[in-house]
């Protein structure tokens, strides 16, 4: 296993070339004007987005670090391929990882004073500082088609939602992010305090899903990344919608709003806004990137496993996965990521290496 030196984001010496306090509500609190963190071993020489290509097998794993008393003191991110770790990185408690897409993992890290967004290349085993912000970056995703990083920010003091922002993946901490969606506001008024925000870019890179959940339910907003349409709200009755599973061409797939597992899975028709039931109960599910096939496990690992074709709605039972393996979820709670083809999902055990799985190729059991 290769393990290369890696910059420690927390507490690293910060050289602020220029500080621009942006007061406008239309801009995040940012420090712009160049690289904010000194080049250190493991830093990419240029944005890895310039040369990035699909890299199936690129993976990351995030593990919480606890002190002796059980308090979370940070997270450890390992990026690599298959079972090998190419890079290891200590993140603060407020740190996230999403992807990989084109071999790039988008990493956010907040040290209590400033948040950074980095593109970490599993292919090149290096990282690139895209932005350093005064606001808190909760999470960020990579839109490979448009070569931008999309981030969710909250106010550092009040934790108020600051909306969704994007910055070029080629930026070197020298670009002021632009807002692409405001805070949910009225769309999520019924939710009360927001607990989590999930960002997903669909396979066509035309739609960004922003799902926000509270203890009362979830609401999803769809943003047209080409800017031709307004923001569509899916799920105005939040108590019906649970966490986002994925985006399909004509629907979004979510969990029902459940107190636990097993839980029904719903498809929300984008034309009507109405949900339809895909399955009565499952404990784990994942949707292929192209939105065609949903794979779900109905009971504990090794239990009944189904493949649902979202176009025909045909449902087939398929061979259960190996012991302990389940479809791996994407989203803010994900602790494992694996780059797969558009017609695949990632599966794996909690403590095992993830692997790709192509639902269409699975034999249907009778």
């Amino acid at each position, binding site marked *: 296993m290769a393990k290369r030196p890696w910059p420690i984001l927390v507490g690293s010496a910060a050289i602020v070339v220029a500080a621009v306090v942006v007061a406008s509500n239309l801009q995040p609190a940012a420090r712009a004007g160049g690289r904010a963190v000194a080049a250190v071993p493991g830093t990419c020489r240029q944005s890895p987005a310039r040369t990035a290509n699909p890299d199936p097998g690129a993976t990351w794993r995030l593990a919480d670090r606890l002190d002796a008393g059980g308090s979370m003191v940070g997270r450890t991110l390992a990026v690599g391929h298959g079972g090998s770790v190419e890079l290891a990185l200590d993140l603060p408690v407020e740190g996230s990882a999403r992807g990989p897409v084109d071999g790039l993992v988008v990493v956010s890290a907040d040290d209590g004073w400033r948040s950074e967004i980095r593109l970490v290349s599993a292919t090149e085993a290096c990282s690139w500082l895209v932005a350093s912000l005064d606001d808190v970056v909760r999470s960020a995703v990579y839109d490979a088609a448009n070569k931008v990083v999309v981030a969710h920010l909250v106010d550092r003091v009040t934790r108020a939602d600051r909306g969704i922002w994007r910055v070029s993946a080629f930026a070197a901490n020298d670009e002021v992010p632009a807002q692409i969606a405001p805070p949910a506001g009225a769309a999520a008024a019924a939710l009360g305090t927001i607990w*989590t925000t999930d960002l997903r870019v669909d396979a066509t890179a035309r739609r960004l899903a922003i799902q926000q*959940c509270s203890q009362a339910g979830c609401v999803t907003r769809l943003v047209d990344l080409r800017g031709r349409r307004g923001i569509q709200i899916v799920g105005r009755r939040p108590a019906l919608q649970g966490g986002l599973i994925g985006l399909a061409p004509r629907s979004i797939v979510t969990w029902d709003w459940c107190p636990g597992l097993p839980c029904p899975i719903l498809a929300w028709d984008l034309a009507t806004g109405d949900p339809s039931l895909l399955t009565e109960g499952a404990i784990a599910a994942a949707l292929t990137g192209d939105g065609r096939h949903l794979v779900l496990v109905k009971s504990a690992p090794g239990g009944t496993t189904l493949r649902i074709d979202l176009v025909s709605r045909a449902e087939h039972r398929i061979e259960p996965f190996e012991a302990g393996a389940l479809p791996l979820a994407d989203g803010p709670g994900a602790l494992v990521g694996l780059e797969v083809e558009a017609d695949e999902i990632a599966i794996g055990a909690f403590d095992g290496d993830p692997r790709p799985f192509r639902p269409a190729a699975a034999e249907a059991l009778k």
Partner: protein
Amino acid sequence: MTNRRPILGLAPVAALLVVASVPGPTLGHGPNPLMGTKTWDRDQVVGYQWASGAVPPSWMAAAIDAAAADVAESRKSRAATFVRQSSAPSRIWYSYPSICPAYGIACMDRSGVPDSFSMWFRPHGYRYDWGTLRWCQQSTDPANGCYDAENVALDEFGHVEILDHHVNFADDSDYLDSVVQAYARAKPRTGWNEHVFGRCDVARLQLEYELRTTFDLVSTCLDLNTTLTIAASATMVSAGETVRFTGKLGIVAASSARRLSGDPLSGRAIVLQRRAVGGTTWSTIATLTPTTSVGSYAVSVTPSATYDYRLSFSASSTEGLNSSTSSAIRVSYAACWDTAVRARLAGAPCA
């Protein structure tokens, strides 16, 4: 002495009669909804252990174990109980990859019922959009805003049993009717450290698992109709003879009563009432005492005239039952019965 003609027949009659129940007031929003359909066996002892590599810190472990004890102490039903064991099929994780939604501070998977369950807890210090998760038990002097781990674990054990979130009134004024809530309240909001099932949690547990004994109180979150039957050892008596009245009290057989349907009820106050023939006013003349048969009560009286008799159960406000009365049974009294009656009824008094 005037001979009186018996009405109900010539033999000692066991008249089993159905009842009229008086609807009670609506209490709260009712029992918690069901989460799934599978239950544990009644009184099943379900073992759990900490998951390898995800053992909770001592303060969290104590809170989870305490919540398991809270289940046993407050279930008021034959719902399963939970006990930590050195080796068990059910696992509890602290800070570990899970299949839970990101917005939860804890969650569980009950797809393994009746063999196992899984439960997860987010670590102290975990970040959400709004800020930092703090468990109260992590500190000896927890600041406001923390979540009580024992309360949250009890909520999760409630789900494991079969409880979905309670449906509160719009103003949440009935929040304390359940600890199995869609959202836990942080300190110091009312209910933040409740460590017993609420009455509507108990109601659902009773519906799905039955009462522990027929003497147990039915949750006031329920509104169950009762049935009371009456039987008399004789319907014709003469001077100095006694009649033994027996009654059986139970929950009306109905699908809405789930597993409580038709169950007997013991230890309740049942009284014997009588009225004069043709009268409309009932008077209580005795209180029945329990017999050795569950849900059964009896009393003996010595009539001095012909009366109609009935039994009455007046439901207490401390439980979710509706009052009921039995049908009436007439016991005819005569100093002596004539020869014709005696010929038809062996043992009829007087020669």
